[in-house]
């Protein structure tokens, strides 16, 4: 949007003219992507690199503040009338105008599966500002290990592209685990990069085609100087659980980790009784996260990503014992705001809902 126009539309006079509706409510008549403050975008390319994935190039509106390499974004789409939001790593380098994300099909992931099957040019997407701590500081470590599995390749790819565009690629080993060659996204681009850049060595392991799963021996064989490398790690929870101790056992250099996609453990089960104070409803905490318990009790708390990223479901707990579903850590809380989607009851809990 033209900056002058944006200033006029954002003025208090125009907002008084549209009150109590917002200027955005009227802009939506022209184009769903238009907004004075919310980052939104439109898909300009949808490329299916593998049968089970789609790479989307998204042109954001001017409320998109950019991202750092390795950060993720909460992406929302309307599915069968309902706005669903999930987190995806931004794979493109930060200086590019559009942003690129790659989505892999995943079991019951409605958003991912929809995007893989149906996303096409013109699709409107709702965005959040970029979030996450998985990004390199301005000064790059001389030697790095990029270690990823499955769709965990995307944030790592963003870090790699960032180093390349800035000419900071010195000595990087990139190890990626995929099920098969056909399942691997960015395979062609990585091969091409390795050919053109002497400082990059790419190792791919296809576990369903005889490749060895990550182990101490295999890791030390692939990267004997692990101890001298700063590590960037991203992959499914099971992979992270195996890889992280191997890296920390051999390297005291910094380890950056991005817990990707389904950060929650499977056993999202609580215990005890949950009391919803404002609505005066009691429910068993067993059925899942506090968000699921609340929804099961007929309440409609706000939610977004349902995986602990967006904080939309944050809600005050008057008192009680809760378990963080990402770490399984149990803590006692009192008058504390917690994210309902990634906490389960670990005893009786009183929630202000």
């Amino acid at each position, binding site marked *: 949007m033209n900056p002058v126009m944006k200033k006029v539309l954002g003025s208090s*006079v125009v907002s*008084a*003219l549209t*009150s*109590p*509706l917002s200027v*955005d*409510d*009227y802009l*939506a*008549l022209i184009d769903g992507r238009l907004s004075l403050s919310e980052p939104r975008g439109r898909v300009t390319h949808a490329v299916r690199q593998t049968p089970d994935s789609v790479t989307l190039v998204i042109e954001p509106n001017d409320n998109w503040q950019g991202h750092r390499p390795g950060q993720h974004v909460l992406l929302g789409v*309307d599915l*069968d*009338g*309902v*706005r*669903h939001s999930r987190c995806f790593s931004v794979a493109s380098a930060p200086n590019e105008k559009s942003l690129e994300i790659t989505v892999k099909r995943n079991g019951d992931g409605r958003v991912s599966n929809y995007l893989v099957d149906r996303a096409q040019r013109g699709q409107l997407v709702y965005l959040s500002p970029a979030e996450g701590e998985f990004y390199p500081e301005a000064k790059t470590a001389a030697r790095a290990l990029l270690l990823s599995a499955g769709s965990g390749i995307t944030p790592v790819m963003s870090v790699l592209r960032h180093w390349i565009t800035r000419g900071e690629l010195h000595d990087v080993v990139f190890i990626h685990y995929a099920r098969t060659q056909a399942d691997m996204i960015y395979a062609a681009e990585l091969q091409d990069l390795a050919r053109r850049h002497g400082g990059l060595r790419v190792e791919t392991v296809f576990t369903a085609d005889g490749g060895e799963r990550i182990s101490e021996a295999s890791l030390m064989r692939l990267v004997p100087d692990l101890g001298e490398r700063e590590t960037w790690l991203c992959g499914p929870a099971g992979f992270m659980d195996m890889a992280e101790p191997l890296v920390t056992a051999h390297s005291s250099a910094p380890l950056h980790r991005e817990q990707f996609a389904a950060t929650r453990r499977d056993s999202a089960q609580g215990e005890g009784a949950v009391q919803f104070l404002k609505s005066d409803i009691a429910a068993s905490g067993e059925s899942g996260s506090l968000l699921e318990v609340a929804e099961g009790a007929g309440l*409609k708390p*706000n*939610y977004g990503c349902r995986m602990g990223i967006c904080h939309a479901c944050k809600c005050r707990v008057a008192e009680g014992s809760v378990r963080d579903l990402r770490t399984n850590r149990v803590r006692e809380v009192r008058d504390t705001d917690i994210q309902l989607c990634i906490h389960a009851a670990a005893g009786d809990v009183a929630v202000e809902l």
Partner: protein
Amino acid sequence: MSKPTHLSKADIEAFGREIDAVRDEVKNDLGERDARYIRSILKTQRYSEVAGRALLMAGFLPPAWLSGVGLLSLSKILENMEIGHNVMHGQWDWMNDPAIDSATYDWDNTCPAHQWKHSHNYMHHTFTNIVDLDRDVGYGILRMSEDQAWRPQHLAQPLTAATLATFFQWGVALHDLEVERLGKDKTLKEAAVQAREIWAKARKQVLKDYVLFPALAGPMFAPVLAGNVTANLNRNLWSFLIIFCGHFTDEVEMFDVEETREETRGQWYLRQLLGSSNLTGSVPFHILSGHLSYQIEHHLFPDMPSHRYREVAPKIQEICERYGLNYNTGPLTKQFGGVVKRILRMSLPHRRKRNTLKPTTSTDAPVYAEAA
């Protein structure tokens, strides 16, 4: 028609389960079709507002002024009735779209959204037609039931009602102040806080409709101001008409606190049915009424997307027939005639209507007979 005495407690619970089944069926079917419906309504409302205000700027031409007023009235009616009222009931919360979420939506009405959600969603929809609990029974200024004590000022209530209709949104805005409780169980301080909230909300509409848009029109100040006043008036009269037909028609039942104590879900459904009345009409008429023409369905399912009322109404009517219950419906002229009759009748002192239902000792007794 009077309260049904032929149903046993078990019958009433079975009736309730059938109503629940209708609700569940729709709930499981919500999707794209519903989203398309509300988006088309939002679009129509916004386009008609923009077009209406633009035409008023050319208001020196009588056809432009008239069509401008028409479109702006349409927009305000759609926004208050089919969008605002229904969004604030949470009918569209399932879409997870922040633009039409009950927690954040605010309507183009002088009544603050959260006060409305208290006086209407909670008080009126929970305690529907229970005299002394449901403050919508006469809004604290009209006598709408024999169970309300007659006072001399009720002689003037035809005039009071006409005034309320003219300034209806202001009546709605002041409603949650609960003036009649002042000095009893509500302090002046509490009311003062609310009054400040009301003014903070109301002045936005005053500023927009009566200052900014007329000023923006420059030489067209007067026609724009007059157009905006007329559009707000039209919306007031229309919403008064529709809302009064929902609960104050001739055959609608009123309840007292005693007979509704410890009500079951089935009994609650039954009270919603007996306390509400529908209007027959065309689809555009239903949309303009915010589907409050399906007042019965709205009271059974306050958070069901409104356009679904049209689809479930035949099922509700069929269930009512099987249980021998009155499904109160009729054209606007007949129903509003009943409202006028009630306003006039209640303006005169009446003897308290004696309850003719006989008490019974059977455990499976008709529920309203038990209360007698």
